[in-house]
């Protein structure tokens, strides 16, 4: 097809007109092959300027457009829209940056003009090899799989479910509710946990758009955002496997507590009446706090930061729940003496310090200590510790260990299942620490709550809401998904099947076709970075709109 390239140079007021001899540039490029028209205009990004371009394209019957003006980061989108409005494919366009990276970086008009000529020529050479690219659209399934029936999973399910969006909630134990069902109260409000969670479980049960699978686990998940094929197995009956399709997956699998068995000096498992936070929650929920000899303790020690050094992070909630334990104890045993052993008091929430101030009081001590060792002394417990530089010891009836929060044992399996990775602490890795806390590197797979990292209930509920927001805004019933256009493409004839591209792709967008023995790009997942292109030894891979040849054309002008 005959190419008719229109080249328009923007004066950008004095910004380009005074720094570059535009007429010289026009002279230099007018006689190039395929160049139909070269002209200049005062301000191409203005309403008049855009109208001018649109009219020019139609009047001159242009097939390609080159604009020499400011940075593509400013107005590439603008001129692509002009092309579309004028009836040519927006990718048959190239913007030469003769402002930020040419006119503005030198006072020498000659120098700037020479460089502008090179840049415009390079744009013309490149655009000759541009190819029309079309938007892609694929159908999507709006339903969601939520893995984990604790507060995070329940919240997400309740917010997501609607008549045009089914939620499949898969819980590995026999009932919903997760860890919260074991707590009498939650901080800092000290409201009843069961009040909170029971109502929510009832709401889930009543909701006809949420299908709950208890005693179940996800066996397999194939596909991509908008189109995952899931298999769920009931763990009580071997053969019962359910299959369904969803568009998104939420991992709300929670956490567990570090096992203090791993640190012998705490005496857990060896000395009576040394219990973990979890065991204490259960005991407290039963209504009575008793030692092994069925008598109530007169003194209790709560030990913070158990396993912190081993895990390498602060679990955020333990200082606060340890304070909650002080309150539990004082409620049920008003005369008990409670001693908190801690290293740094971590009370970051806006209500937390007040909670702490109101927890301190008669018979409640806080001792900053290191090198704790719990030993048996007759039928009593003795805690040895270092306070500042002095060594001390304290006889005590009961010890509660507040251990670090860690990922569940099935985190690795779930990560593999959904093609996401584990990050710091072994928790699921978020896409971006700040801007993408609930997203992952796999589009359509979200991580919420303690599965993503230690956090309190309020933050967990917010994250469940965040994943809801992500899904409700991007996975809309009836709406097609538009993936990245400038994706990688691998030539079947040049591919030698070395799989180098597969190994470098951060997104898992390339798979190996065993039959044809070649690599195949999933254009829905591909983000267009080009890493596979550089990794390919046979030149089989290319990025649309950034092909080797297109870059080569720019380069040839650059080195002339």
């Amino acid at each position, binding site marked *: 097809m005959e190419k008719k390239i229109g080249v328009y140079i923007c004066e950008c007021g004095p910004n380009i007109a005074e720094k570059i001899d535009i007429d010289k540039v026009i002279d230099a490029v007018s006689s190039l092959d395929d160049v139909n028209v070269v002209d200049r205009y005062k301000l191409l990004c203005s309403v008049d300027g855009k109208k001018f371009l649109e009219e020019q394209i139609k009047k001159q019957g242009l097939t390609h457009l080159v604009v020499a003006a400011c940075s593509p980061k400013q107005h590439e989108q603008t001129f692509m829209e002009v092309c579309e409005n004028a009836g040519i494919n927006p990718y048959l366009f190239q913007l030469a940056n003769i402002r930020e990276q040419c006119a503005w970086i030198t006072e020498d008009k000659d120098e700037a003009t020479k460089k502008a000529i*090179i840049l415009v020529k390079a744009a013309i050479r490149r655009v000759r090899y541009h190819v029309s690219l079309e938007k892609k659209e694929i159908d999507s399934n709006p339903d969601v799989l939520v893995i984990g029936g604790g507060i995070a999973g329940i919240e997400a399910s309740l917010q997501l479910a609607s008549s045009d969006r089914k939620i499949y909630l898969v819980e590995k134990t026999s009932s919903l509710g997760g860890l919260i069902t074991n707590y009498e109260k939650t901080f800092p409000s000290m409201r009843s946990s069961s009040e909170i969670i029971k109502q929510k479980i009832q709401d889930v049960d009543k909701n006809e758009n949420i299908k709950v699978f208890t005693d179940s686990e996800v066996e397999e998940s194939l596909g991509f955002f908008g189109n995952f094929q899931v298999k769920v197995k009931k763990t009580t009956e071997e053969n019962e496997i359910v299959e369904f399709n969803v568009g998104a997956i939420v991992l709300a699998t929670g956490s567990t507590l570090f096992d203090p068995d791993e640190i012998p000096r705490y005496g857990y498992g060896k000395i009576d009446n040394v219990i973990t936070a979890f065991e204490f929650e259960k005991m407290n929920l039963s209504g009575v706090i008793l030692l092994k000899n069925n008598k109530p303790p007169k003194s209790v020690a709560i030990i913070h930061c158990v396993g912190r050094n081993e895990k390498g992070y602060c679990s955020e909630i333990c200082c606060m729940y340890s304070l909650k334990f002080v309150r539990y104890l004082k409620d049920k045993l008003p005369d008990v003496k409670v001693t908190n052993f801690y290293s740094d008091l971590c009370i970051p929430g806006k209500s937390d310090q007040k909670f702490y101030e109101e927890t301190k009081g008669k018979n409640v001590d806080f001792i900053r200590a290191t090198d704790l060792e719990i030993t048996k002394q007759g039928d009593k417990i003795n805690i040895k510790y270092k306070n500042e530089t002095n060594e001390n010891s304290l006889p005590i009836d009961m010890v509660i260990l507040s251990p670090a929060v860690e990922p569940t044992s099935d985190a690795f399996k779930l990560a593999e299942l959904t093609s996401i990775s584990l990050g710091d602490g072994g928790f699921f890795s978020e896409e971006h620490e700040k801007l993408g806390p609930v997203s992952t590197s796999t589009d359509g797979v979200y991580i919420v709550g303690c599965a993503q990292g230690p956090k309190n209930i309020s933050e967990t509920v917010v994250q469940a809401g965040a994943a809801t927001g992500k899904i409700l805004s991007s996975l809309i019933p009836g709406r097609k998904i538009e993936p990245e256009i400038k994706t990688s493409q691998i030539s079947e004839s040049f591919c030698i099947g070395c799989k180098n591209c597969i190994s470098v792709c951060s*997104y898992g967008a390339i798979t190996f076709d065993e039959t044809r023995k070649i690599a195949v790009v999933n254009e829905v997942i591909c983000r267009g970075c080009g890493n596979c292109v550089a990794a390919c030894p046979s030149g089989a891979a290319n990025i649309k709109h950034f092909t080797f040849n297109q870059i080569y054309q720019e380069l040839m002008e650059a080195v002339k």
Partner: protein
Amino acid sequence: MAEKFEPRIVGFLCNWCSYAGADLAGSSKLKVPSSLIPIRVMCSSRVDPVIVETAFLRGADGVIVAGCHPGDCHYDEGNYYARRRFAVLKKVVETLGLESDRLRLSWISASEGQRFADVINEFNEKIKKMGPNPIRKKTSL
């Protein structure tokens, strides 16, 4: 009498960081040598060794590849791969009969306009001292 040597430097700049940093140098009206001809790519990991070799064989006096700082890559790990390829490329450039310092890899963020200007100015001076690409006229492809 030798002509004053005006280097020709090709810069492969990544869209998200270094290209934006170069724009900022311009918006801040800093002086950057016009010897640099920028070529935009989406990620520094797109820059394949062949295009760099071609650049030198076709006469570039210097080639600079600029990407996001490690950890900041818009595509997660692209710049790490660029770094690895670069290490090998340095050796390859020597086999072409060129000083390996004619190839440069820099991490320049979108807010580092001054740094971009400094890096290009310094690179330009270095290339000037090294003189023209010795294989520029010898090779024909």
